[in-house]
């Protein structure tokens, strides 16, 4: 065992703080016009990032070598866990996740500093300085409140406590890093914004610089939030995907402001307008990411995301104070320079629509923020209020629909001014599509189980309550109608674009097929059409969210042989089985040594057709003897999900209590995410003109290093995997790195094979490209 590892780790965290402080000072000095110092600052930023990487690798080493002297390692891992989950534990708890956060931030710092080479020279020093302040804050946080290298007072334990089984889930491996990527990504735009304010370069320069970074952060905020929904849906077992938990709310707040910014920035790029607004949105987005982290970590509001309470909240409050003070101070200082010289020329313009949409997004954000904080706010006047999901659902429905309607209408307007004739022409087809959908929905909706009107309870007494109740009951119908409107708008935009291209081509005497015209249209206007694709993804998500209006939830107790009817499903309870041990268990279930699994098998028949079997279960983990976990079993389709959960099972009589949910259209949310990702990447791609700065070589080199790292880890893990395979079926020998069940291995190996092929390709590509680049360089005449 490496005796001094914890001390070294703590020392490295100190070193991060010192390196960040050094870089900050040098960068500030460089800001006073000394280019040599800027180079020192850039190298300082790289070295700070490398130090963070070193700290993360040290902690990873502590995890894989089971150094249980370190409190964090002992608390979040045990000897049975596989290497993959051991590495997941890096962000499983408070202290480690702060280090992980710092690593992602360092990644952004490195990427940003590389990208900045030779550009935005005036802004660069202050961008680096601002980023270093953020790195320094996280280093301080680790040192004074949540040191991941802190040792247990009681000394090393023989085994750790293990990672919470709820977190041992593939969504959990990728959900937090994605969300953090989004959160941390907002730091770079903030740094540019501060830099622009300090240097007084408040024209479009910084807005153009920030665009791609904000879009990137927006992409990951979207992915992170939706993956969080998937995790909640599959793991928590309550039948839904969004419970308006404070931490969920905190995670979606920056999404609203980021979405508002990516729209309002388009106006500033074209017109000298909305300067204060854009600065405000960037600062607010960054503030909300820190505020969200504060809500998650400080534990001031009760939440299912139980991070241990600690003194960490105080530091966040100070930091939020610094952000607010700096942002507001700089804004007030530069207010004369931020004055708009342009104005909205007509209400019937895209600018006006964007501004309206911005307000709606900000309204939604404010509503969620105030409602989330209300229990705490109400304490000020001695009240103890709780705000539950019904409150959010009732109000966010209409707010969401306003955003949805504006999203559909905005593309129909042109910039600056749209003539009455153009508006009529643009609205005609989408309105017809909407009317057709309303009629079809009214006729067939009820028959298909998706009626346009649903019953709602009165929430408030009196006339206002009645209006809210009636509005609420029409929301599903309105959403579907607006979805049709939005889809029609997007299709129409593509059709008009393709037509225009083909007309221009025919005037030149060329012919362009529809496919070619469509491809070139998107290629030439990636940002615009990427945006429309994102809108399509949002439509898909709205359809998925609306599905909750028609869900069916039932709870029942059954004994083997009982039948139950829900929606169109006929369910037959076949009996329960404990695995490993029961002969009916599959080989993979028999081989599991981490837990005992109590399955309740249910046969599913829909409209006379046998669909298969669902097996909701309770898992009893050896590392978590306190209570079993609930394992959902689902039958998914684009139309609806059959979602089954087993509550209690009597081992003697096999009587089981089930919760059955039929959740219509949920899959459209996940489909929407894929579409949104496609659209954002389409918009983002040309903005990342990496070729210009020769950054592709870095990307390739980075990909090569990442591929190599994964390759090395995989090779190193291979012996333990083979060992896991050879073990006898019911072996319970808890040796190191044998935690993977055969089932997991069988699932992982093909994907590992595919991954390997991809990685090998990347490595090969990197080597070839580097070699070619060198050859090209060599070929260039030197003199």
């Amino acid at each position, binding site marked *: 065992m490496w005796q001094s590892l914890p001390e070294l780790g703590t020392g490295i965290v100190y070193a991060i703080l010192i*390196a960040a402080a050094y*870089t900050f000072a040098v960068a500030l000095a460089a800001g006073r016009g000394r*280019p*040599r*110092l800027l*180079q020192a*600052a*850039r*190298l*300082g930023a*790289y*070295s700070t990032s*490398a130090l963070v990487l*070193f700290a993360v*690798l040290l902690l*990873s*080493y502590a995890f*894989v070598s089971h150094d249980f002297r370190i409190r964090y390692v002992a608390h979040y891992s045990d000897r049975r866990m596989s*290497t993959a989950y051991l590495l997941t534990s890096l962000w499983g708890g408070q202290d480690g996740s702060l280090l992980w956060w710092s690593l992602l931030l360092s990644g952004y710092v490195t990427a940003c500093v590389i990208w900045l*080479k030779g*550009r935005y*020279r005036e*802004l660069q020093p202050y961008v680096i300085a601002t980023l270093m302040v953020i790195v320094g804050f996280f280093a301080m946080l680790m040192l004074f409140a949540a040191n991941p290298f802190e040792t247990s007072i009681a000394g090393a334990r023989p085994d750790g406590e293990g990672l919470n089984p709820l977190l041992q889930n593939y969504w959990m491996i990728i959900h937090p890093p994605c969300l953090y990527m989004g959160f941390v990504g907002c730091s770079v735009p903030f740094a540019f914004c501060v830099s622009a304010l300090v240097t007084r370069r408040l024209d479009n320069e910084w807005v153009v610089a920030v665009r791609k970074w904000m879009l990137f952060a927006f992409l990951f905020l979207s992915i992170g939030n939706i993956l969080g929904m998937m995790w909640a849906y599959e793991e928590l077992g309550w039948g839904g995907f969004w419970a308006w938990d404070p931490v969920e709310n905190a995670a979606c707040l920056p999404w609203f402001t980021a979405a508002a910014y990516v729209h309002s920035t388009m106006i500033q*790029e*074209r*017109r*000298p307008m909305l300067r204060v607004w854009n600065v405000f949105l960037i600062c607010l987005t960054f503030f909300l990411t820190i505020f969200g982290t504060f809500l998650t970590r400080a534990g001031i509001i009760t939440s299912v995301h139980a991070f241990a309470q600690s003194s960490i909240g105080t530091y966040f409050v100070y930091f939020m104070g610094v952000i607010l003070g700096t942002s507001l101070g700089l804004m007030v200082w530069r207010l004369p320079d931020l004055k708009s010289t342009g104005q909205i020329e007509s209400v019937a313009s895209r600018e006006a629509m964007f501004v309206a949409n911005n307000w709606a997004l900000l309204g939604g954000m404010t509503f969620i923020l105030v409602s989330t904080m209300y229990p705490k706010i109400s304490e000020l006047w001695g009240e103890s209020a709780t705000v539950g999901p019904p409150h959010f659902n009732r109000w966010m429905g209409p707010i969401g629909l306003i955003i949805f309607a504006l999203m559909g209408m905005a593309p*129909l307007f*042109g*910039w*600056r*001014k749209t*003539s009455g*004739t*153009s508006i009529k022409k*643009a609205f005609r087809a989408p309105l017809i599509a909407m009317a057709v959908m309303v009629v079809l929905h009214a006729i067939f909706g009820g028959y298909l189980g998706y009626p346009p009107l649903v019953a709602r309870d009165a929430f408030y007494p009196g006339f206002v309550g009645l209006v809210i109740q009636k509005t609420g009951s029409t929301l599903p119908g309105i959403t579907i109608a607006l979805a049709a409107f939005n889809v029609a708008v997007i299709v129409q*935009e593509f059709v*008009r674009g393709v037509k*225009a291209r083909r007309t221009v081509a025919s005037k030149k005497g060329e012919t362009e097929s529809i496919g070619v015209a469509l491809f070139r249209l998107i290629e030439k206007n990636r940002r615009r059409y990427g945006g429309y694709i994102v809108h399509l993804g949002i439509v898909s998500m709205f359809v998925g969210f609306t599905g909750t209006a028609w869900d069916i939830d039932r709870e029942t107790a059954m004994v083997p042989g009982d039948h139950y009817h829900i929606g169109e499903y006929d369910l037959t309870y076949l009996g329960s089985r404990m695995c490993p041990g029961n002969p009916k268990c599959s080989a993979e279930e028999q081989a599991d040594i981490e837990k005992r699994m109590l399955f309740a098998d249910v046969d599913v028949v829909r409209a006379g057709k046998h669909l298969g079997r669902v097996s909701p279960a309770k898992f009893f983990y050896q590392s978590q003897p306190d209570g079993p976990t609930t394992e959902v079993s689902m039958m998914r389709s684009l139309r609806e999900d059959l979602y089954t959960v087993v509550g209690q099972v009597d081992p003697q009589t096999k009587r089981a209590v089930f919760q059955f949910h039929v959740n219509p259209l949920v899959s459209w949310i996940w489909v929407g995410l894929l579409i949104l990702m496609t659209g954002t990447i389409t918009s983002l791609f040309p903005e990342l*003109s990496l*070729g210009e700065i020769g950054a592709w*070589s870095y990307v390739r080199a980075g990909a*090569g*290093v990442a591929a*190599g*790292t994964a*390759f*090395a*880890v995989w*090779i*190193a*893990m291979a012996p*333990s995997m083979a060992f896991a395979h050879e073990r006898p079926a019911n072996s319970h020998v808890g040796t190191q790195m044998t935690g993977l069940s055969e089932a997991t291995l069988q699932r992982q190996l093909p994907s590992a094979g595919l991954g390997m092929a991809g990685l090998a390709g990347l490595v090969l590509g*990197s*080597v070839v490209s*580097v070699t070619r680049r*060198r050859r090209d360089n060599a070929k*260039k005449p*030197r*003199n």
Partner: protein
Amino acid sequence: MNDSPRMRLPRWAPPLLSLTIAIVLGNLYGVQLVVLTFAASALLLVIWLLWSSVQALAGESELTFEEAFSLGARSAEEEQKRAVLRALKDLEYERSVGKISEDDFHEYSARYRAEAKRLMQTLDENLAEGRKQVERELERRLTKASARSAASVSAATSADPSEEQKSSPAAGSEPQKSAEKPDNKAAPNTRECVDCQAKNELDARFCKACGTPLDAVTEAEDNP
């Protein structure tokens, strides 16, 4: 990271070495040694970067022309010009899909074109002084260089040094080298649009006659 001009080792060599060691050790001793190897590599990287940073701070490292003078920041007029050109492009697009009436199109188009023209003139005026300075400095350096180099070479290079500067801002970084590149002197200071054959400035992004983007050509020239 090629920030340090003193770097001799190929950029990919250290990661490759670290990777090889990690693979070998990983196969022999397990995953722990893989992580440890990468940690050690990270530490070496930190030391090297900090050392380079301190060297740069102390003024011991060479500073390339590009690093010192790569004034990537554009002037306010340049940014406004880009915004106006973008607005013109939008206008054309909106007209092509019928979102704007012909009258409005002509009105706005004329307004933006006038604005673009004004900005471009301002930009040219702003650049004039700097250009003269650069030409003077270049000439001074070239004269100095020519005194040292062969008479024939210096005679060829002193013909028109300003054109080299116009073709690439970074070219001035190595006057010594440019002085020895007689081929570049013949480079044209305009280029033709592929669509309408109009002559455009080398830094033009769109053709001034037909508006066809010239980016592809520019990028190709920037990244040989």
